[in-house]
């Protein structure tokens, strides 16, 4: 280090790699500066290095070729890619962790093993074995490995590499021998080797066990069923996928994702999830509630004739059927053999079934929400946006040529936007522009909120008026139609406001539009719920039929149906007719875009109605199932015929989390609160339904519990335990306390991980600087000792 001056001159004059350092003057300066930081590598040498190199490249830019590689940044990091490293340096470099990270892990061993597996098959020289066979361009950034194989020591290195790879393979085999078969198979499957290699490794590592494997047919098995069972068991253990049951609509969804990408696919996946949730709900209520009641019809039922209008409005035939609450009686079934031991009480079954189903669905939703949130949560959010966009944005599922072109356009636009954002930064807006933006925002929000308010008010007034027109059939549909109409029209107004506002980032636009749509639906449903629970249930208006639950159930049924009809109309008119109109008359080739957020919110709205109504109309999930089924095919066909893919980016996993959260938080919880309030507080009517003559629905459970105590020892003990739990407030506080503690613990863990990540990144950075210093030192020592070899490399 002391004789820095001599050294720099030698290197610079003979080193053609440093093209920029044409003159010895500035080059010497630069190299001296480069030497200096070597003394204190942990200081701040990079800045000085950068400066000098920038200066250098500036002076020599005029004479260098206009290749893009001569920028200062790239120059600095290219300092480790010189051509004429000595063999020793190259060996050291090639065994550095960063070059071999891929090669030391199981993946890397796999790569080596793969390359050497091919070896015994042909007799080429060992030189070629490690030689990366793809022809590389003879430019400055050619990889190190090329150099290795053409060196004198190439043979030695190749041999050592070969030996290294062989040991890697043997290490793999011995690793796998040590573990159990199932675990070993799982490890083997997760290795990125070719199938032939895997089979060979498996043969070697599991050979004592392979003889007992069922795959070997020479083993005589006297017990055929036993063999089949063990084979099936083996396959079950090795095949980790149990979700093959979700194969409904698999081919259609594959076609859709091929054309439209992952965003649209998330809508249809959400639809399928909702279908399964409803199916589960329906099965539970059917088995425990509808079926017993259907087998033992109540004595006082009288049939009204069937009419199609009745089917639409829910009055008439349907109101006297299993569909609605009024049909269910408060009988206790004692006739069959099982129920003579434990009598089956319909009112209790009603309450239990509904609450249990809600409870199960709550668990399912919380579980899927946490899983989806865990997938999209990042411990350390750094600005890796650009590299993430480049590495992860290509969707391999898209197969049609025009879609691929669209995807390329999307990616290109996004990259260009991000690049321009980085270079220009925030645009500077004048005060006038800022003020104008502010006014536009205020105006847009005012319009939206006013429209929501007026629509809610209108529905409230209409619902009060509708009571007086109770018995005219089609007029009952009027209010439901108005609600659906508002749901359809107002998002159009919101879209117009969003177009007026011109938000900067597309994600803000999506969130704002979701929020406005959500607010609209919450207001409408809130108004209706208030009207039902607050007015009808309490006031016992004689104009409402004596069975107000029936009335509420019918209202919800009508709302659901109208929502479906309006969706069909919108799909037909809004998409099909609009496309024909714009093609034939306007002569533009612009197809409408499938608005994912709005359609998902429609699904959530329909599901909310179902959950609200299930207490009053237990067969409502069946209606929802049919509706979702038809909706899938309708939307799919309309999409294929009429719509084009959106040009805006869509972060599928993140948005799926948002949708499930929306499904859980306002929708499910709101419905659960509504049901809980009804069950606990509201007094059921005395004329109809299974809860007549009781103060509230929960009382039926208490009465049943009292009766049960006499029947069975275990049941009475359970009931006593349950009473003790629910009466004691400690039951609530203890689990909540534990829950909060767990959350606090997790937050601290995440925080600690963030700090560790930051420290590790700094450590890697420092080690990189160390490495650079050591390599150049090594090179310098070598070249100082062998001045002839530097002449030999000159010709490259």
């Amino acid at each position, binding site marked *: 280090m002391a004789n820095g001056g001599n050294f720099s001159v030698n290197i610079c004059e003979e080193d053609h790699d440093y093209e920029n350092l044409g003159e010895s003057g500035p080059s010497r300066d630069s190299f001296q500066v480069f030497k200096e930081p070597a003394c204190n590598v942990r200081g701040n040498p990079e800045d000085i290095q950068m400066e000098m190199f920038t200066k250098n490249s500036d002076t020599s830019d005029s004479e260098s070729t206009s290749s893009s590689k001569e920028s200062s940044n790239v120059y600095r990091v290219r300092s480790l890619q010189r051509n004429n490293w000595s063999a020793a340096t190259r060996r050291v470099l090639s065994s550095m962790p960063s070059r071999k990270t891929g090669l030391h892990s199981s993946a890397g061993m796999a790569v080596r093993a793969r390359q050497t597996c091919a070896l015994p098959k042909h007799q080429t020289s060992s030189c070629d074995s490690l030689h990366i066979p793809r022809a590389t361009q003879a430019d400055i950034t050619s990889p190190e490995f090329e150099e290795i194989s053409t060196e004198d020591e190439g043979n030695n290195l190749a041999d050592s590499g070969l030996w290294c790879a062989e040991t890697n393979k043997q290490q793999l085999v011995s690793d796998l021998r040590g573990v159990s078969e199932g675990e070993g198979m799982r490890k083997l499957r997760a290795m990125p080797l070719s199938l032939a290699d895997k089979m060979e490794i498996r043969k070697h590592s599991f050979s004592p066990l392979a003889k007992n494997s069922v795959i070997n047919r020479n083993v005589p098995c006297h017990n055929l069923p036993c063999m089949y069972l063990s084979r099936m068991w083996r396959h079950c253990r090795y095949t980790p996928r149990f979700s093959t049951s979700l194969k409904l609509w698999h081919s259609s969804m594959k076609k859709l994702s091929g054309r439209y990408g992952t965003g649209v696919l998330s809508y249809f996946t959400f639809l399928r999830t909702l279908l399964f949730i409803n199916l589960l709900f329906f099965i539970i209520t059917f088995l425990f509630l509808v079926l017993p009641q259907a087998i033992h019809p109540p004595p006082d039922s009288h049939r009204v004739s069937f009419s199609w209008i009745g089917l639409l409005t829910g009055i008439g035939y349907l109101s006297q059927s299993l569909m609605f609450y009024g049909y269910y009686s408060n009988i206790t079934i004692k006739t069959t053999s099982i129920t003579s031991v434990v009598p089956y009480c319909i009112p209790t079954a009603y309450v239990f079934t509904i609450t249990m189903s809600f409870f199960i669905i709550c668990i399912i939703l919380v579980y899927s929400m946490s899983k989806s949130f865990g997938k999209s949560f990042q411990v350390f959010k750094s600005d890796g946006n650009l590299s993430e966009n480049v590495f992860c944005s290509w969707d391999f599922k898209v197969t049609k040529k025009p879609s691929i072109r669209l995807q390329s356009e999307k990616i290109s636009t996004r990259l260009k936007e991000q690049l321009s954002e980085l270079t220009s930064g925030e645009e500077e807006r004048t005060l006038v522009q800022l003020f104008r933006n502010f006014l536009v925002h205020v105006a847009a929000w005012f319009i939206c909120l006013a429209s929501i308010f007026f629509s809610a008010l209108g529905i409230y007034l209409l619902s009060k008026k509708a009571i007086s027109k109770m018995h005219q059939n089609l007029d009952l549909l009027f209010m439901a139609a108005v609600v659906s109409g508002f749901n359809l029209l107002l998002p159009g107004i919101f879209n117009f406001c969003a177009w007026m506002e011109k938000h900067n980032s597309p994600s803000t636009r999506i969130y704002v539009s979701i929020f406005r749509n959500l607010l609209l639906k919450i207001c409408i449903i809130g108004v209706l719920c208030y009207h039902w629970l607050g007015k009808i249930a309490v006031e016992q208006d004689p104009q409402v039929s004596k069975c107000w639950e029936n009335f509420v159930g019918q209202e919800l049924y009508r709302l659901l149906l109208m929502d479906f009809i309006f969706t069909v109309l919108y799909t037909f008119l809004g998409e099909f007719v609009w496309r024909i109109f714009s093609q034939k008359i306007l002569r533009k080739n612009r197809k409408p875009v499938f608005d994912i957020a709005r359609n998902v919110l429609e699904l959530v709205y329909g599901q909310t109605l179902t959950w609200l109504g299930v207490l009053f109309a237990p067969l409502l999930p069946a209606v929802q199932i049919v509706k979702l089924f038809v909706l899938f095919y309708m939307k799919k066909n309309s999409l294929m015929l009429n719509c084009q893919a959106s040009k805006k980016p869509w972060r*599928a996993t993140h948005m799926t989390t948002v949708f499930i959260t929306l499904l859980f938080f306002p929708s499910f919880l709101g419905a659960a609160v509504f049901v809980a309030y009804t069950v606990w507080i509201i007094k059921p009517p005395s004329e109809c339904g299974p809860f007549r003559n009781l103060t509230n629905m929960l009382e039926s459970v208490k009465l049943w519990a009292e009766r049960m105590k006499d029947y069975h020892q275990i049941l009475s003990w359970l009931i006593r335990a349950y009473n003790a739990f629910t009466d004691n407030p400690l039951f609530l506080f203890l689990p909540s306390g534990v829950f909060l503690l767990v959350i606090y613990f997790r937050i601290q863990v995440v925080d600690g991980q963030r700090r560790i990540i930051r420290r590790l990144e700094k450590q890697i950075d420092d080690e990189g600087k160390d490495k650079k210093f050591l390599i150049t030192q090594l090179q310098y020592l070598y070249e100082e000792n062998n001045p002839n070899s530097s002449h030999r490399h000159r010709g490259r």
Partner: protein
Amino acid sequence: MGTTASQLPKDSLSEYQELTFLTKQEILLAHRRFTELLGRDERNHPNPRVPMQVILTLPELKSNPFKTRICQVFSTSEDKDGSLTFEDFLDLLSAFSDSATLEIKSHYAFRIFDFDDDGTLDHSDLEKLVNCLTGETEDTRLTSEEMRQLINNILDESDIDKDGTVNLSEFQHVISRSPDFVSSFKIVL
């Protein structure tokens, strides 16, 4: 272990099931599609190898800008010409399947993006990658200035040890931050 006539022997089927991430139906479907690609005389060959040009006629790969790289990465042929046997084809489908792990997917994605096969993604690899992503037409391609800036930014963000290239670990680190990668790195027959 090869395929005889047009039937897949049962023990091969269960072995493939154990060693790949594919289900039985997927393997059988893959076998059917693969035999459709073979010429009539090749069908009775013990271990037929399909040239790259024929593989690229599959509709799932036909328009993919990375189709040649995919074939080259999964090919085990000695001439490195991108031809695939049935087992290579299964490897391909397994890496792109639903249940493949993130590690496998990121490993193969790295190899696909490594156009010169040197074990790291350097400047030229990244440039070719971005050109593949943005397509062929003139208005979607980035200018050389934009390209240079983009690659510098990528290296700034992902090159942790500052050696000028992105190696496998750094690549996997970037991938792990994107939850959409697993669902977009999929090819389904």
